[in-house]
C-alpha cells in the first residue's frame, strides 16, 4: 500500500520528464557510438572513457574560467573538442592500422584503450569526486505536473533533439555525410572511386567521439564527476545501440528513450532492483527481434 501511495499522476509525469532528460544524455552519447559502429564497424568500448574525459575536461575548463556562467558555456563548447583531439591522436597513431582486422581484435583494442584512458584520467585528475555548477539561469526548478523539475533538465530536453536533427542533416545533406554512409555499406567501392576512405573513417570516428565528449560535458552539472563513469555508461550505451539496431541513429534514439524512461520508472516502482530493468528489456527485445528494433547496418 505504501508503494501505491507514492505513485500518483504528478509523480508519474515528473518521472517521465526526468527519464526523458536522462534519455537525451544517453542519446547524445550513443548516437556517437552508433555512428562509429555504422561507418567503421567498430564496437568502441573506449567510448565511455571519452565521455568521462569530456566530463573531467568540462570540470577543468569551467574552473579555469572561475566557475561562472562563462566557464560553464566554454566548458560545454570546448570539452568535446578536447575529446575529439584525444580521439584523433588515438585514431591516427594506432587505430587506423587495424581496420582490416577482425571485429574481435578491434573490440579488444578499444578495450585496451579504455583501460589506458581510465588510468590516464586517474593520473591527471585524481580519484576524487568533482562537480561543477550550472549557471544561475539553469539553477532551481520549474513546476511541471505539480512537481519541481530542474531547469537544467529542460535544457537537456532541447539539446537532445537538436543533436538528432544536426546528425540527420549531416548524414543526409552533406557530402561528407553521404560518403560516410556509402563507406558504411561498401568501403571497397568508395575507395575504388578515388575517395580517401581512411580520412572518412577518421572523420566519422572523431565526430562520434566528439559526441561522447559532448555527452560528458552535458551530464557534468547533474552528476558527480568521478573515475568509474566510463564503466557506468558504456554497458548502457552498448545495449542501447544493440536494441536500436547496430549503426542506426534513430535506433539509438529509440533505445535511449526506452532506457531513460524505464530507468526512472524503475526507481519509482522497484528501487532495489531498478538496475535490472535495462538488461531485462534488452533480453526481451533481442529475443523478440534478433537484430534490434530498427534496421541494422551490420
Amino acid at each position: 500500500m505504501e508503494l501505491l501511495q507514492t505513485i500518483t499522476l504528478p509523480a508519474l509525469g515528473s518521472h517521465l520528464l526526468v527519464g526523458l532528460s536522462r534519455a537525451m544524455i544517453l542519446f547524445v552519447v550513443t548516437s556517437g557510438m552508433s555512428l562509429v559502429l555504422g561507418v567503421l564497424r567498430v564496437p568502441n568500448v573506449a567510448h565511455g572513457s571519452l565521455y568521462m574525459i569530456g566530463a573531467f575536461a568540462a570540470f577543468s575548463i569551467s574552473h579555469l574560467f572561475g566557475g561562472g556562467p562563462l566557464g560553464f558555456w566554454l566548458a560545454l563548447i570546448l570539452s568535446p573538442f578536447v575529446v575529439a583531439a584525444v580521439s584523433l591522436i588515438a585514431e591516427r597513431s594506432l587505430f587506423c592500422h587495424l581496420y582490416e582486422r577482425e571485429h574481435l581484435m578491434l573490440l579488444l583494442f578499444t578495450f585496451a584503450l579504455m583501460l589506458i584512458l581510465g588510468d590516464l584520467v586517474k593520473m591527471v585528475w585524481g580519484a576524487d569526486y568533482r562537480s561543477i555548477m550550472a549557471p544561475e539561469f539553469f539553477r532551481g526548478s520549474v513546476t511541471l505536473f505539480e512537481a519541481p523539475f530542474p531547469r537544467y533538465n529542460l535544457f537537456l530536453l532541447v539539446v537532445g533533439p537538436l543533436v538528432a536533427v544536426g546528425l540527420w542533416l549531416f548524414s543526409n545533406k552533406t557530402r561528407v555525410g553521404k560518403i560516410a554512409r556509402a563507406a558504411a555499406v561498401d568501403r571497397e567501392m568508395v575507395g575504388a572511386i578515388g575517395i580517401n576512405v581512411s580520412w572518412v573513417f577518421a572523420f566519422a570516428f572523431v565526430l562520434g567521439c566528439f559526441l561522447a565528449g559532448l555527452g560528458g560535458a552535458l551530464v557534468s552539472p547533474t552528476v558527480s564527476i568521478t573515475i568509474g563513469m566510463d564503466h557506468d555508461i558504456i554497458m548502457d550505451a552498448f545495449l542501447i545501440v544493440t536494441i536500436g539496431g547496430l549503426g542506426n541513429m534513430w535506433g539509438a534514439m529509440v533505445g535511449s528513450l526506452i532506457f531513460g524512461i524505464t530507468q526512472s520508472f524503475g526507481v519509482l516502482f522497484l528501487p532495489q532492483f531498478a538496475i535490472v530493468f535495462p538488461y531485462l528489456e534488452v533480453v526481451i527485445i533481442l529475443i523478440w527481434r534478433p537484430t534490434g528494433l530498427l534496421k541494422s547496418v551490420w
Partner: protein
Amino acid sequence: MLVILASLPTLLPRFYVYILAVIFVMALLAMSLNMLVGHGGLFQFHHGAFYGVGAYTAALMLTKTSLPAWMGLVAGPFAAAFVGLVIGVFCVRLNRLYFGMLQISLGSLLWAIAFRWYNVTGGDDGIHGIPLPSLIASSTGAYYCGLILLTLSLLVLYLIYKSPFGATLQAIRDNPERCEAIGIHVRHHQLMAIVIATFFAGISGVLFVVVEGSVFPDLLFWVFSLEVFIMCLLGGWFTFAGPIFGAAIIVSLRTFVGTYTEYWTLILGIMLILLIFFLPEGVWGYLLEKLGGRKHKEYR
C-alpha cells in the same frame, strides 16, 4: 611436469602456492572460454557470468544449507551448465555481435541480481568465510584440488577437441554456411559447446570458492569477462594450451606489478595493444610457430 607441480607446495612458500592455485582457477576458466571463442567462433562476451554462477551456487549451498559440502561443490558446475543451457538456447539464434550482446545483457542481469539481492547473495559485500571440508580448507589442499581438477579438465577438453564433435565445432567456426548446407545442425552443436564450456566455467567457479573462501559480485561483472578474453588472446586463440599461459602471465603480472604501481590497468592496456599489433597469434601460438612444433595450422 605433473610430478614437479605436485611437489611444489612442499618447496615453495605459502604465498606462491596460493598464487599458483589462483592461476589454476584462471587457466581453467580461460580454457573453457577458449573452447567457445577460439575453437567455436562464438563471441562469448560474458563468460564470467557462468564462473560466478558456479561460485555462488557452491557458496550458497555451503553457507545456507546443511547439505553435505561435497554436494555444494558438485552442484556448482551443473548449475552453471544449466544457466548456460537456458541462456544458450536464446543466444544461438543470433549472429555474432548480437549473440555477444544478448549474452552480455543476460550476464549483467545475473550480476545485477547478485549485486542487489542483499538477503541472499550478500549484495556487493559478497559472502565471506565459507566453511570448506577440512581436506581442501588449507592452501595446500586447495592447491592440490586445483591441480587435480585442472588436469582432469584438460584431459576431458582435449578428448572433446579431438572428437568428431570438436572437429565439427571447428568447421562451424570456419564456415557456418557450408556446415549448414551439408546437413550439420549448427545451432545444436553450438548449444552443446556452450553447455560444455559453461560446465567447465562452473568448475573453475567452485575452485575459486575453494581457493579464496569467498565470493563477490565482481566475478560476474563484464570487465572481468573481458580480462579472461585477454588471457586467451595473450596465450593464443588457436592453440589448445595457450589460455593456460595467458592466465599464468596475467595473474603473475597482476600480483607482482600490482604491488609496485596502482596503474595496473594502464600496463595491461599497453600490453594488450602491443599484443594486438605484434603478436596476434599470442605468446604460445607464436612460440609454437617459431619452434615448428605445429606441422599444420590446426586452429585456423
